[in-house]
């Protein structure tokens, strides 16, 4: 049933809006809270994200991705825009948690979806530095420079780890073509 929400919205079924909010409201809100930290900013972002979701619902293709991935992607676009616009960054007190290896699975953090579990597996296949850079950038919203400052890695190295890491993860998740990964792996 969940897979039909975006299609219903695209078809003009207004009742699907509430289903969308019920199903993905927590996801969008949690992403916004994690990336923006400030509650007021997060609330504004959530409102914008849902408008984006409605606008883009017709573009969702169930053959290419799940609704969860699609919604998360739309949310992430908007959140990145806001971060870039406001230059708001991660609070330093959470850095240690993020940099700690391995991730503590005993806490109450929840794998909210199969996608998250698969992505976690993908990260496990990466080199520790690549994994670290992707976590700081994607999960925490840090820039190249901030990651360089926080970890002591040269800026160019951060960029390289990010690129190679995302390509490899994309490949692991079955989203990319083997050719690009092979080419990248040989660099």
């Amino acid at each position, binding site marked *: 049933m969940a897979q039909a929400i975006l299609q219903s919205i695209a*078809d003009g079924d207004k009742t699907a809006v509430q289903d969308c909010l019920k199903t993905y409201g927590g996801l969008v809100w949690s992403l916004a809270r994690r990336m923006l930290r400030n509650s007021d900013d997060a609330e504004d972002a959530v409102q914008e994200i849902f408008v984006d979701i409605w606008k883009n619902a017709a573009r969702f293709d169930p053959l290419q991705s799940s609704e969860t991935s699609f919604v998360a992607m739309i949310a992430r676009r908007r959140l990145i825009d806001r971060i870039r616009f406001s230059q708001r960054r991660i609070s330093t007190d959470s850095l240690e948690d993020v940099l700690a290896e391995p991730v503590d699975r005993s806490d109450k953090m929840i794998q909210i979806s199969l996608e998250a579990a698969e992505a976690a597996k993908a990260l496990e296949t990466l080199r520790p530095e690549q994994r670290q850079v992707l976590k700081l950038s994607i*999960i925490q919203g840090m820039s190249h420079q901030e990651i360089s400052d926080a970890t002591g890695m040269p800026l160019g190295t951060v960029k390289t780890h990010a690129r190679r890491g995302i390509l490899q993860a994309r490949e692991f998740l079955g989203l990319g073509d083997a050719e690009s990964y092979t080419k990248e792996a040989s660099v």
Partner: protein
Amino acid sequence: MTEDENEIMLDLLCKKAVYGLTKEEAGLLEQFEAGDFDAGSFEETAAAIGLIDLKAEPMPDHLQAKVMADADEYFSRDSVFSKNEADTSSQRTGQVSHTKVRGSFMDWLGWGVAAAACIALAVNLYSTRNQSTAVAGNGATPTPTQQEQLDPSQQRQRLIESPGQVIRANFGKGNVKEIAEISGDVVWSEAKQAGYLRLKGLPKNDVSKETYQLWIFDEAQDEKFPIDGGTFDINSEGEVIVPIDAKLKAKNPSAFAITIEKPGGVVVSTRGKIAALAAVKSNQLGSTFNDRIFDPPIVKLSLFGAIFSFRFSSTVAPRL
């Protein structure tokens, strides 16, 4: 595309997914064709990684109400369902203004009609309030088996007998003159977030033209945006039992309203046709029964965009 261009594009796609692009970079990316790459797959990869270890937090109720207000405005626009509206970039999209009340024309137009309906509703709410009956759910904890098949009536009874708080309120007529003999009640378990309508006198509806839709007024939602309790059709005479399909978590419901809407239902009702109303007298029943006494209660219902308040002398009444 040359090998160099391919590399630049790969760089941009990775950066877009991981960090986002500057305007200049976004402009540069647009100049390239996607080439051999599925451009969206990079963002999708990053989005999946972004879900890892996400602390799940429920969206605040007031924010849900804001989003629903946005939806009302967004889906009211004629062009909303145009496929052309799909975003093709990650650039900021036009913002929805968050005005709470729209359609001032309707406010003025509906004023006279609303005033009449106000009187009818006041009488109805007063009467249904006084008819509301407490139902104690203080029986032994039922232990249903997984395979047990219960009909709606049995499910309703099971809910009433379940532990915890179960509220019940009687239905009375709304503002549709043709539906004057409505009777029945609603039971709702806040713990289970489930409930049932038991209705008699609600006429069959022509499913090609209209449907019935339930609305739940609770203390968390703005009264202008009650919770959608689901749509249903009446296709038989006599008493019917309808399970409630609340689209959001209802917190301490204080009233239930059944409206007549177009097939499929609506996101926000104009409340032009209210088939039945039930105001909750007591917010609690069951083993821990404890009537709460409120200050002079106020029941508000919006009609045609105008908000009316009804003040009762009773000491127990819903808060809307």
